[in-house]
């Protein structure tokens, strides 16, 4: 669907729902009132968090330039390469579908296979804007546990896959 049509469909749905909730309230239609109550209480909870999350993400976008990170990428060997992979993944916007083409070009520019795999893995788990969103809604503890467990595991898997596949002469294609 085109974005414009999608927007119109969404707005129509919202308007329809508003009418439904209003009529339910006036006619004292029980299930309708209950839906309306769930909607408003959840919306209220979210609105306490949403603006903060958006402001934080925008500040991050304004102050951290991805070009700076990419420039350093591939220069670091050993563990530094993996640290840059985390940083670069942190600034990646969008999901895996953005990470694959970028991983391909990084590898072509000389990034090791292990670092490239690590980058793909990290771009799923530690994009900073997404992590800010997560921590806002689920709590910092939840995010901390997830990162503390998944970063080492993803790194180990990437190193092992990188070593094995480098020996086999594997290459990322386009």
């Amino acid at each position, binding site marked *: 669907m085109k974005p414009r049509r999608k927007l119109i469909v*969404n707005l129509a*749905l*919202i308007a329809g729902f508003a009418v439904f909730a209003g009529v339910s309230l006036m006619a004292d239609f029980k*299930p309708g009132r209950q*839906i*309306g109550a*769930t*909607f408003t209480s*959840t*919306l209220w*909870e*979210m609105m*306490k*968090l*949403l*603006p*903060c*999350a*958006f*402001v*934080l*993400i*925008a*500040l991050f*976008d*304004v*102050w951290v330039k991805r070009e700076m990170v990419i420039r350093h990428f591939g220069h670091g060997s050993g563990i530094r390469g993996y640290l840059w992979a985390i940083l670069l993944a942190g600034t990646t916007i969008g*999901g*895996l*579908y953005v990470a*694959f083409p970028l*991983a*391909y070009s990084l590898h072509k520019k000389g990034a090791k296979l292990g670092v490239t*795999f690590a980058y*793909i*893995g990290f771009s799923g*788990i530690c*994009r900073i*804007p*997404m992590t800010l969103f*997560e*921590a806002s*809604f*689920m*709590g*910092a*503890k*939840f995010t901390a*546990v*997830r990162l503390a*467990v*998944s970063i080492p*595991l*993803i790194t180990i898997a990437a190193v092992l*896959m990188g070593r094995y*596949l480098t020996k086999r002469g*594997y290459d*990322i*294609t*386009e």
Partner: protein
Amino acid sequence: MHIYLYIITAAALVVSVIASRKKTLAAFKIAATRFFKVLPVFLVMLILFAVSITFLPNEVIGKLLGRNSGPFGVAIASVVGSITLMPGFIAFPLCGALLGKGVPYMVLSAFTTTLMNVGILTYPLERRYLGRGVTLVRNGVCLAVALIVAVVTGLVFGEIRL
């Protein structure tokens, strides 16, 4: 818990304003534009959430995903997370709402981690870059990582007792 978010946001804003007023203003503009762009999708998600929560009795949600669903709830969450494509700004508020409905952290962690890292719908794209074998291994590894994360989350939040 919300109070920390407010403190962090306020601190970040103060630092940013001191460093550059122009950039801070630009950030506000970006935030507002994105917020209003996302709002319709967000409200529709909330409507769907409110409707399904009202018609699904609490017992059903509890049985499928709740505290006593155990490995079954984690399995459902991982399958749903692997299949669906959902941006984070929809997924995390939804998880926050489900958390309020008594769905354990462990189950939500299985959902979000597979959502972010395992892609059945992105498989054709991934295969083009990485090849079939590596794509399968990568997704398998990520699924395993997601399950380990879920178990550790369950332990940390006291949802699994040894």
